[in-house]
């Protein structure tokens, strides 16, 4: 049923308000510190609350048990969760959900997407290998045809949300081209190890040793366009990561502004000093630019602008968010002075989350390079 733009805006505001309320009540920096270096890297109780609120199902179509809403709705929830550093379990699963949704295996969608929406089985994506990078084709994992399906071998790295995932979307080379496959977390031949990211959340390394994938678990068979579902989901996830980043930078900047209003040196609040005021304004400008580009990107994703324009706006969005988030994260430490450098103060938590989000799914340099390749020097404004 079509609703008016005013009603849509009102719905989004209500969603934002309920997410903001959830974060106000649930943000727990003490718990976050205690979970550092621990699997699965998030609070299981909080995850259940998020499931109950239905947010895992925002982007899942109604026929698969989701809410069938858009990126505008998902974006505001992630912004708010980002403010409380509470988005970690959500984003990687959403990313995987998008690959599944864009792939062609309808039966698998019927099985996996309802389980994502109700939180009973969260998926993750293994798409990078070696030293990482934005090129989804730079992979060596193999999908060998077998009697019923394929057999996967290879090593996937930088898998966000790997701990606690019920299964993985995995890309591999098949004889006819790249394909995308669903691998159950308990599949024989699969082992998962962890590296630790800047914010001390786990990053999975999947070891695949002749893992059998039955035909029904082939998300998208190997072919010349076999990575299209993954590439589309990558653009979408980059925009969603930017939404979380916007929340992180807003919270970090607010923390610094609060400190600047109250911290007295030389007999005055340090926020009265012009050098610090101008620095804070520059951070605010970066935050607002991120918001503006994110708005554009979300609108274009919801309008499904197609494979020509989508990667351009996704790269613009992620480049700005990554740059702005890193800059705000760093400068917020500086605006605090020594206290900002301590582990017990929250500024460092925001910086480290910004570092993870900045690099995940391509940092600013990677996205600027991709934007340059996509436009080849002809930026039509």
């Amino acid at each position, binding site marked *: 049923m079509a609703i008016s733009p005013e009603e849509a805006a009102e719905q989004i505001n209500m969603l934002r308000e309920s997410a903001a309320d959830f974060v106000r009540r649930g943000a727990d920096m003490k718990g976050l510190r205690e979970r550092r270096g621990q699997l699965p890297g998030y609070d299981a109780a909080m995850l259940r609350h998020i499931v109950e609120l239905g947010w895992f199902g925002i982007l899942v179509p109604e026929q698969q048990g989701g809410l069938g809403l858009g990126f505008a709705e998902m974006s505001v929830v992630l912004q708010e969760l980002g403010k409380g550093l509470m988005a970690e379990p959500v984003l990687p699963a959403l990313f995987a959900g998008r690959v599944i949704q864009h792939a062609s295996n309808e039966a698998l969608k019927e099985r996996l997407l309802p389980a994502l929406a109700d939180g009973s089985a969260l998926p993750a994506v293994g798409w990078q290998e070696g030293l990482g990078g934005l090129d989804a084709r730079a992979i060596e994992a193999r999908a060998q045809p077998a009697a019923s399906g394929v057999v996967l071998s290879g090593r996937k790295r930088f898998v966000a949300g790997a701990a606690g995932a019920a299964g993985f979307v995995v890309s591999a080379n098949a004889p006819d081209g790249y394909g995308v496959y669903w691998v159950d977390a308990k599949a024989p031949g699969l082992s998962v190890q962890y590296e630790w990211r800047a914010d001390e959340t786990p990053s999975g390394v999947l070891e695949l040793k002749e893992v059998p994938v039955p035909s029904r678990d082939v998300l998208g068979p190997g072919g010349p366009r076999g990575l299209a579902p993954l590439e589309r989901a990558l653009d979408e996830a980059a925009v969603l990561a930017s939404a979380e980043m916007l929340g992180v930078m807003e919270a970090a900047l607010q923390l610094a502004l609060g400190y600047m209003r109250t911290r007295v040196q030389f007999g005055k609040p340090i926020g009265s000093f012009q050098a610090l005021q101008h620095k*804070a304004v*520059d951070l605010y400008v970066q935050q607002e630019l991120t918001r503006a580009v994110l708005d554009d990107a979300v609108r274009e994703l919801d309008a499904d602008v197609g494979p020509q324009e989508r990667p351009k706006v996704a790269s613009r969005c992620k480049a700005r968010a990554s740059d702005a988030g890193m800059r705000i994260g760093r400068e917020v430490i500086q605006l605090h002075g020594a206290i900002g450098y301590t582990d017990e103060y929250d500024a460092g938590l925001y910086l480290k989350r910004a570092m993870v989000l900045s690099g995940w799914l391509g940092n600013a340099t990677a996205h600027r390079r991709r934007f340059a390749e996509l436009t080849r020097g002809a930026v039509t404004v």
Partner: protein
Amino acid sequence: MTQQRDWNALSDEEFRRIAAEFFETHVPKHLKFLSRRPRWAEVSEWYMTMSRHGWLCPAWPQEWGGMGLSQSKALVYMEELERSGAPRVMDQGLMNIGPLLIAHGNEEQRRRFLPKIISGEHLWCQGYSEPNAGSDLASLRTEARLEGDEFVINGQKIWTSVAFDATHMFALVRTDKTVKKQAGISFLLIDMQQPGITVRPIRNIAGHEELCEVFLDNVRTPRANLVGELNAGWTIAKALLGFERIWSGSPRQSTLALLRLESLARASGKIDDPAFVDKYTQVAMDVLDSASAYERFAQIMRTGGSFGVEVSMLKIWATETCQRVTELMVEAAGDLGTLLGEVDVNGEPIDILYPFLDCRAFTIYGGSSQVQRNILAKLVLDLPA
């Protein structure tokens, strides 16, 4: 003669199409995309063309001969005017003092001045800044003393654009030296064609003479030319039209600069230099993000919303981005970046230095970047004084 239409009944898209067509049809070809501000004699014909068609004053009510455009339609008008490459006319009357008189003037002042702006008989300039009152404008010292029914004005104004072509000046003057500086300022309308007015052009770093000094030596203006109450000038001058606040942060200048940079990069072959492409992509994306931010505020305006001083982030980003684009242009030009005027770049004439020099002013006029930051820090970030 003047076409009265309810423009606001059209959709923005429809009005945009009509505006684009009007400017396309009527802007004289030889005056498009000038890289300098033309003198009145060159553009008076274009001014009168707009006047005849009722297209001169977008934001004025129709009863005064304007188009009666809403803020959002006025913004579309400005965007299409700019896109057409139309030359800048003497626009202080139609853009600034006209709307100000409509809002704060009295009926007699409106009757006396508004029709002459439309007829091109009165050409206005703005007398605000003084040698010792720049960013701290309220400390201005040009003094007006009431003698009978006349103000007698003495002092000096500076950075007055195209004062040499103006017949009138609207000015902020000190009328009370005993109170807080903002509370002793009045808003006066002054006839420039009288003894005691001396205009001296100031050559800028781009080699152009648009800005002027204006000396006022026992200059007289009738009391009837006081706008608003005595000593209420500061409040009146500070009230800006909604669309003007967003317009100063539009991406038009940085977009134009980027197109010039693209031309240079293609003509010179720099477009194939990866080191250049890295920097180019960065500034190009800065320009696009500037456009996104501008659109965000424009959209708020279109849907009838309002915003506060946070809009000044647009001006900071748009103007500083424009400067970075022109800096890269000079750098990318290498040896050519030392040559004045249009230079031959493999057969293509490109003026490399003008955009760089011209846009130094953008971060200074209309509230410098630093003043904008002060305002944002206090009013938006709520930082202490």
